[in-house]
């Protein structure tokens, strides 16, 4: 087998996550899908770092994780406060982009 | 590297504008005086430029050149030729009069909140709201840009100025309306913003098309420098495909035709001139529009000589239409300022006609025409402005018998009008006749048609004068004060200039002629020889 397959897998996961973002209305699940996409990216990075034989890819993946963690924290906090204010976690309810 | 005179001439008003805008709200008069002094100082600088310019010398003089955007080879390149120097002088000359004439036009009046198109909480507080400073600052800003555009020899630099000019003009038109407006203030504000937006959109549209052409030019020629491209064209190292050249030419010409304005792209001018305050109207027609005709002469002919010759027939027809059409519509107007606007359209027709006749007389005439038209329109329009501010109405029907109560005003108005109908002895006659002769020698029929324009000119001027100045004194006219010192200081110098240049235009022609000869070489045209000498 060739490590390229990891890339294929990553692509698949990424796509699935993306479609999840589009389909689901529960903010939390949407968030999970975003995480999924991030992980897919990490997988590609790792696979590439193996292919090129240097560790930079892993470093980037590491940073991705850190950023993801921070993002999750903030995101979930937003969801919670949103839920407090409007008793719902649906992204459609929060159609605030249209005033 | 000698002293950058041209840059200084352009920079001075720009700095002055900033300084004026910075004057505290309460010190209105100070701002006015500051603006006036700055404009006068600019006039002095322009005078120095005019004096330093040697007619017989290089084509472009007092040149400056600095790299600006290296990646695209855009350079900050300045240089002035005979045509540029004439218009430069005209601009620097007119601005002080414009400022002086608009002395009170931007004083905040009870309803000025409505009048201002600039949003924001400041309006509600007249103390912080500073229309006067803004007005004069914007005028100076326009001057700076116009001056620079007359001396820019880098196509891209010129384009930027050509566009940037619109911004202050937009605010001047939309922000400071004519107080003598029939109807309510809201109504006035609406019409004014309509006019301003129309002005902006028209010129923007032209400008964007020009931008495409500018980029295209760069792709083809690989440079923005006017002189480089012209040389390359001349020595054949750069040969454009005919179709390319024509497309680029059209791109440039469209923008200039909107600015100039040429029929049928003229409809923004009457609105803009009608709604703006008279000084701003003068600024539009006498100064800013000249950039359009000037650019035709400098860029269209110089960069695309073949295409220019190719397009000549159509353009001449359009110009003729402008002349007759503008004049006829001027006759039909009820609003003094709109009448003058249409008259200007007719005159711009003459200018374009002279440029594209491609004879020495035609082009010299067109150049002189730009200057003279600036002076004559300024005289007529500003005096009309004084009249309008007195009566508070722009409708011709509201006037009558002014000549009896305010003879001096009527006299200056008449002289301005006579200049507009190009009476011999006043400056416009010289240019108009040159244009006519130039056109006639190349296209006799066009020459004859254009001559009709002078009859129509007499018609609309005299009708205007008769309806406003003569006859029994109408109510609201009686007790109208005659011109005051400030107004005389505006009118008399202009009239003196008109007479002087009409009797002795040599100072101007000797500067212009060499430049025109250069242009003639660019388009590789020779004046048609008179029949008799041809026979011999």
């Amino acid at each position, binding site marked *: 087998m060739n490590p390229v397959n990891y890339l294929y897998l990553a692509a698949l996961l990424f796509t699935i996550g993306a*479609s999840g973002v589009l389909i*689901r209305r529960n903010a939390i699940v949407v968030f999970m899908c975003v995480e999924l996409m991030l992980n897919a990216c990490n997988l590609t990075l790792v696979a590439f770092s193996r292919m*090129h034989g240097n560790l930079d890819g892993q470093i980037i993946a*590491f940073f991705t994780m850190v950023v993801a963690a921070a993002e999750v924290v903030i995101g979930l906090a937003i969801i919670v406060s949103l839920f407090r204010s409007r*008793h719902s976690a649906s992204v*459609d309810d929060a159609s605030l982009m249209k005033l | 590297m000698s002293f950058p005179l041209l840059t200084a001439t352009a920079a001075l008003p720009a700095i002055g504008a900033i300084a004026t805008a910075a004057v505290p709200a309460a010190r209105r008069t100070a701002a006015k005086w500051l603006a006036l002094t700055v404009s006068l100082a600019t006039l002095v600088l322009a005078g120095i430029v005019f004096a330093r310019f040697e007619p017989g010398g290089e084509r472009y003089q007092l040149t400056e050149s600095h790299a600006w955007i290296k990646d695209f080879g855009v350079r900050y390149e300045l240089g002035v030729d005979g045509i540029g120097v004439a218009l430069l002088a005209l601009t620097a000359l007119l601005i002080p009069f414009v400022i002086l004439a608009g002395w009170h036009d931007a004083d905040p009046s009870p309803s000025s909140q409505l009048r201002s198109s600039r949003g924001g909480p400041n309006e509600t507080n007249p103390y912080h709201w500073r229309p006067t400073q803004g007005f004069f600052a914007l005028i100076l800003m326009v001057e700076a840009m116009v001056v620079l555009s007359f001396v820019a020899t880098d196509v891209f630099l010129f384009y930027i100025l050509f566009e940037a000019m619109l911004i202050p003009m937009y605010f001047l038109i939309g922000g400071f309306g004519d107080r003598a407006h029939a109807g309510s203030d809201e109504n006035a504000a609406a019409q004014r913003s309509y006019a301003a937006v129309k002005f902006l959109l028209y010129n923007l549209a032209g400008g964007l098309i020009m931008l495409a052409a500018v980029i295209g030019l760069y792709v083809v020629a690989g440079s923005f420098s006017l002189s480089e491209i012209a040389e390359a064209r001349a020595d054949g190292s750069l040969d454009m495909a005919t179709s390319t050249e024509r497309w680029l030419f059209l791109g440039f010409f469209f923008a200039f035709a909107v600015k100039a304005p040429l029929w049928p792209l003229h409809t923004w001018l009457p609105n803009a001139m009608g709604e703006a305050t008279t000084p701003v109207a003068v600024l539009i027609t006498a100064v800013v529009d000249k950039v359009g005709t000037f650019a035709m002469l400098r860029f269209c002919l110089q960069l695309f000589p073949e295409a220019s010759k190719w397009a000549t027939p159509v353009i001449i027809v359009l110009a003729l239409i402008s002349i007759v059409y503008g004049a006829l519509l001027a006759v039909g107007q009820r609003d003094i300022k709109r009448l003058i606007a249409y008259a200007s359209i007719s005159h711009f027709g003459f200018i374009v006609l002279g440029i594209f006749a491609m004879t020495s007389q035609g082009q010299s005439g067109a150049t002189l025409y730009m200057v003279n038209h600036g002076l004559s329109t300024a005289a007529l329009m500003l005096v009309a402005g004084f009249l309008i501010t007195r009566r508070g109405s722009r409708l011709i029907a509201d006037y009558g018998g002014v000549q009896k109560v305010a003879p001096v005003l009527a006299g200056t108005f008449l002289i301005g009008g006579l200049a507009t109908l190009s009476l011999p002895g006043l400056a416009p006659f010289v240019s108009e006749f040159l244009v006519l002769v130039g056109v006639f020698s190349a296209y006799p029929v066009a020459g004859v048609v254009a001559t009709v324009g002078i009859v129509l000119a007499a018609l609309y001027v005299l009708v205007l004068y008769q309806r406003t100045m003569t006859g029994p004194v109408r109510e609201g006219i009686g007790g109208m004060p005659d011109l005051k010192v400030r107004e005389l200081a505006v009118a008399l110098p202009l009239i003196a200039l008109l007479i002087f240049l009409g009797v002795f235009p040599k100072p101007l022609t000797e500067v212009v002629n060499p430049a025109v000869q250069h242009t003639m070489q660019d388009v590789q045209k020779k004046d048609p020889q008179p029949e008799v000498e041809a026979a011999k």
Partner: protein
Amino acid sequence: MSATLAAAVTTTSTGEAVQFWILGTVAVIGALSTVLMKKAVHSALSLAGTMMVLAVFYLANGAYFLGIVQIVVYTGAIMMLFLFVVMLVGVTAADSLKETLKGQRWLAAACGLGFGILLIAGIGQASLRTFNGLGTANARHGGNVEGLANLIFTKYVFAFEITGALLITATVGAMLLTHRERTERAKTQRELSQERVRSSHLPPLPAPGVYARHNAVDIAGLLPDGTPSELTVMQTLRQRGQIRDVSSESLADLKALEQRSGERLGRDRGPERDPAEEEEEVAK
């Protein structure tokens, strides 16, 4: 495992291949169920599964440090955070998979499909046949972790510091967002008791379903007069408006019951029914 691999080879060990194909399937299934599961909790769990698999893959790719971090940070911390929030927010109407935006689902499907195909096509097009393992890279500083550390603290030190700042900010932000300002003074024991006495409920609140005919937390207990009492349901459920209305249901049930009994016993109204039977029918 691939630490010993020489440079520029085209295939990996069969073991890894097997592992990939099995776990890959699992990962995909996990991902799909993340998207498709009705309840957020289930999504969270299946996502956790996918992440575990990814962790294994990291390890397989010689990213030992990342593999561990993946398990500890992601699966351990982040997913748990998710679960907490799910509990806090709970299951809401948003959980239903019913689409509300017109055409959204089709667009999503189209985009997803096209995207995936394009992506995979792109990867296929890229010539990535050969690869050289991490052996040398890891070995240079005596191991993967050392290697990473070396890079982080030399080449990427600046970025690293910045991430630190980022995390701090995130923490503060989260606190700000979730912190609720206490507006009124905390009540003392005394005041509470006085309130309690003034209020209509001197005795403790009735438990849900006490007087009802079965015990479900989200069904209001019936008061002696047969009317349901909101008070018997816990506050969270009340806030979420997730109280199942007992009265209407029971009426419906009764109707159904009579009908069926009538069918069965061949007469209009059966005698008194035994409560057990009813109970289970209500439960249905």
